């Protein structure tokens, strides 16, 4: 009997690539939030954190390219899977859309939340990461506050904040399904642990969405500048 030892085109392998890259992105989301929360410490704390990251030099560049790579693989592989799924379902759909199972909103919206996040990340990079940190956007009352100033000025605009918060709600929905899905895809499903993992997945998603969303809400309604 013949079989191929490693098949990159296998549906399971592709799913496991999505799951693994997803896990890396989950860790990134946690660390990124931890860093962002320095904003509550004021301009010195936040800009100090940004400087510390910049001081990493080559390591920071490697980490950034690594993240780009992981992000790209996650999106491209998912895009392939989604296209295959659309093909498999075929053109004819059921006349009545009436799910019997536990299909949640988060699950249903995975491709859409993912697409929004993809577009959002591009905008976010242009908006903050690649912004001129000493330019006019960093100035508050005539003084440049570096990236802290850029962030505060951006979130003082309600529309800017709203787009950010919508993205973070989608991030929460994406994480609610993605975190628990990772373990199923890698073969861990247990009567005792799986219900706990599902619960953790939901709490974690809410915590991440709330943590990130708290920043524009803080700038808009609490921070006096």
């Amino acid at each position, binding site marked *: *009997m013949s079989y191929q030892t490693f098949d990159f085109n296998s549906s399971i392998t592709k799913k496991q690539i999505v799951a693994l890259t997803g896990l890396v992105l989950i860790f990134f989301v946690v660390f990124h939030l931890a860093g962002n929360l320095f904003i509550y410490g004021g301009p010195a704390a936040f800009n100090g954190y940004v400087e510390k990251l910049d001081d990493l030099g080559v390591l920071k560049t490697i980490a950034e390219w690594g993240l780009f790579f992981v992000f790209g693989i996650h999106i491209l592989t998912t895009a392939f899977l989604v296209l295959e799924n659309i*093909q*498999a379902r075929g053109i004819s759909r059921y006349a009545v859309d009436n*799910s019997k199972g536990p299909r949640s909103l988060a699950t249903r919206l995975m491709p859409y939340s993912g697409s929004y996040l993809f577009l959002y990340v591009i905008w976010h990079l242009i908006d903050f990461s690649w912004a001129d940190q000493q330019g006019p956007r960093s100035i508050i009352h005539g003084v440049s506050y570096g990236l802290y100033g850029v962030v505060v000025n951006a979130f003082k605009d309600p529309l800017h904040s709203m787009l950010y918060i919508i993205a973070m709600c989608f991030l929460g929905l994406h994480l609610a399904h993605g975190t628990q899905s990772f373990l199923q895809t890698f073969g861990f499903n247990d009567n005792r642990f799986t219900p706990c993992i599902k619960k953790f997945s939901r709490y974690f998603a809410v915590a991440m969405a709330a943590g990130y969303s708290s920043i524009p809400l803080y700038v808009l309604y609490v921070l006096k500048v």
Partner: protein
Amino acid sequence: MANKINLILKVWRQKNQESQGRFETYKALDIDTDMSFLEMLDVVNESLTKSGVDPIAFDHDCREGICGTCGAVINGQAHGPLKGTTLCQLHMRHFKDGQTLVIEPFRAKTFPIIKDLCVDRSAFDRIIQAGGFISVKTGQAPDAHAVPVPKDKVDWAMDAAACIGCGACVAACPNASAMLFVAAKASHLNVLPQGVPEKKSRTLNMVKQMDQEGFGNCSNEYECEAACPKEISVAHIARLNKDHRQAS
């Protein structure tokens, strides 16, 4: 005396694989609530035949919920609204008088419609064939206790072996994925001593065949588990994911 109900049926009618299908509306009158869904279709078919209309084609065999031949989607739900039930074991008492039922075949690119509610599920047979053989000694039947099998593995294998291959998992999956079927079929042999020697090839070949047939990819939505008339757990899919990772 049994209760009688009247129903309005919107049934998918399709002459053959090439033709365009459409919904036709029929009245199902004086339906005994103790009838099974298929018996109700028999009654409707009798009246259709008498009035010169081609009867509704639907698959059926044992009508005891064990062969996996029957199956249709009722109001968007594979095998109807009841959990853990095949269409033949679904009784009309679960429907209300005057209710409209939309009856469709299992839809998936890999399950082409042969006629009306009959679909071609031979892709499943090819996946089973790809799984190959198991290593057993020929000759006289071995003693029942000759190969000791731990209780948890027996339970796991028996749960998986309950799969009747009806295809409801594919029909219910938003991606038309066959992962629950393949997982059940691989799982019930992969844990048993008789199936272990070919575990690696079985897993890789069945998944490869599943992909070649054009089934979708599992996105952990668990609609398959809810639609499965044998209530096979998605834990078997996790097991297949693990076996495949280890075999690759």
